């Protein structure tokens, strides 16, 4: 049931966007009365978008026929915003697409082109100054979060690399053992030879 709650929220959000951004509605006109299904394999979640020319329905647990069905992972979702990436993702096996590629590109382009002027929309409730301050604060927080994320990623990468340097590969261990055994047998042979000479 939580899927229905999430899709209900998503539906409200998408339709709010459609009223706030007339360009989005214009970009989606070509998708009217077509169904775009999306399956996220890592979340085991299937949903669908059904735009009727005015309103966008978001379905959860969708397992019906669709004009275009995309199967991918959450990580690739961000890349779907760029229509030119679709073919690359399909070739690299990160995305499976059945049906009308044009429909996927249309949605990708429509949502990729979104450039919401949040300050403008919020100014009705908060006033110009308040809205501008809120939006710039959120942007600053977002930038800071991105910096921290990048920094943590670098630290983690460094840690992994350091760890790689102090641990050896199993093959190296096997080679070391073989060399040690050879040295040991050579030493034993030398010991026998010395014993034979001294006796």
């Amino acid at each position, binding site marked *: 049931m939580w899927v229905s709650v999430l899709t209900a929220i998503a539906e409200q959000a998408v339709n709010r966007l459609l009223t706030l951004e007339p360009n989005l509605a214009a970009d989606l006109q070509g998708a009217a*009365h077509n169904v775009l299904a999306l399956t996220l394999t890592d979340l085991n979640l299937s949903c669908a978008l059904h735009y*009727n020319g005015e309103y966008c*329905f978001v379905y959860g647990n969708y397992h019906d026929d669709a004009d275009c069905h995309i199967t991918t992972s959450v990580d690739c979702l961000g890349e779907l915003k760029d229509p030119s990436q679709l073919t690359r993702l399909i070739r690299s096996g990160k995305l499976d697409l059945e049906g009308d590629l044009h429909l996927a590109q249309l949605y990708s382009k429509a949502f990729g082109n979104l450039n919401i002027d949040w300050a403008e929309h919020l100014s009705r409730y908060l006033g110009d100054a308040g809205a501008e301050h809120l939006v710039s604060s959120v942007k600053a927080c977002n930038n800071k979060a991105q910096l921290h994320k990048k920094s943590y990623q670098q630290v983690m990468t460094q840690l992994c690399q350091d760890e790689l340097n102090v641990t050896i590969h199993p093959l190296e261990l096997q080679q070391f053992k073989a060399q040690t055994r050879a040295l040991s047998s050579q030493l034993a042979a030398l010991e026998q030879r010395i014993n034979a000479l001294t006796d």
Partner: protein
Amino acid sequence: MKEENRDTTHFGYKTVESTQKESLVADVFHSVAAKYDIMNDFLSFGIHRLWKRQTVACAGVRKGHRVLDLAGGTGDLTAKFSQLVGDTGQVILGDINDSMLKVGRDKLRDLGLVNNIEYVQMNAQALPFPDNSLDVITIAFGLRNVTDKDEALRSMYRVLKPGGRLLVLEFSKTDNEALSKLYDFYSFNILPNVGKIVANDSESYRYLAESIRMHPDQETLKGMMENAGFEQTSYQNFTGGIVALHRGFKY
């Protein structure tokens, strides 16, 4: 759930003459029609909207389809289907009760949905449509009030086009013991009292609780659909089985 015999049937926990049930059910819905929507939200805590959302998602309704929202009451599903079928499609809001139809018609007109909706008073057991004429039929929280459910399912099968589908959204049986006890307490103690306070009608809401208990469980209803001719029948439980959505196709 089998009927007692050919001449009697259940009305809640009572056994009544088959010919009486329609008028008894009609009295219930005449009584609750005006406050039906608000009571639905109140008594289900709004969850009925999520159940209906999933029904729309499973209906596969597309532009140009002809859809029957049977026992459609106040038109929650009709409103969605009307937007999906577009100008070339048609949605028929059918109900046996004229009070419910009037409430539904007023509500949908207030929403500006007028172009592709027809309102027809009809009996689910004898649908007034030619054979193979509808793409999708839904019946949400209505089948348990029908006197002869098997006959109604056969009638729905007859009017569906090959490839068409039936969706039955209805209260069902939960197999969770704790939830079942809580649900029983709510149904027989809280629900009639809330009905009395909000709608000034406790008897109708007592009937609601009793009729739910007398309705066939998930597997039985699935079997009834198969007996009527439906194929690829399946069901999904909502809210622990308190409600189930059955789906079947005609090929």
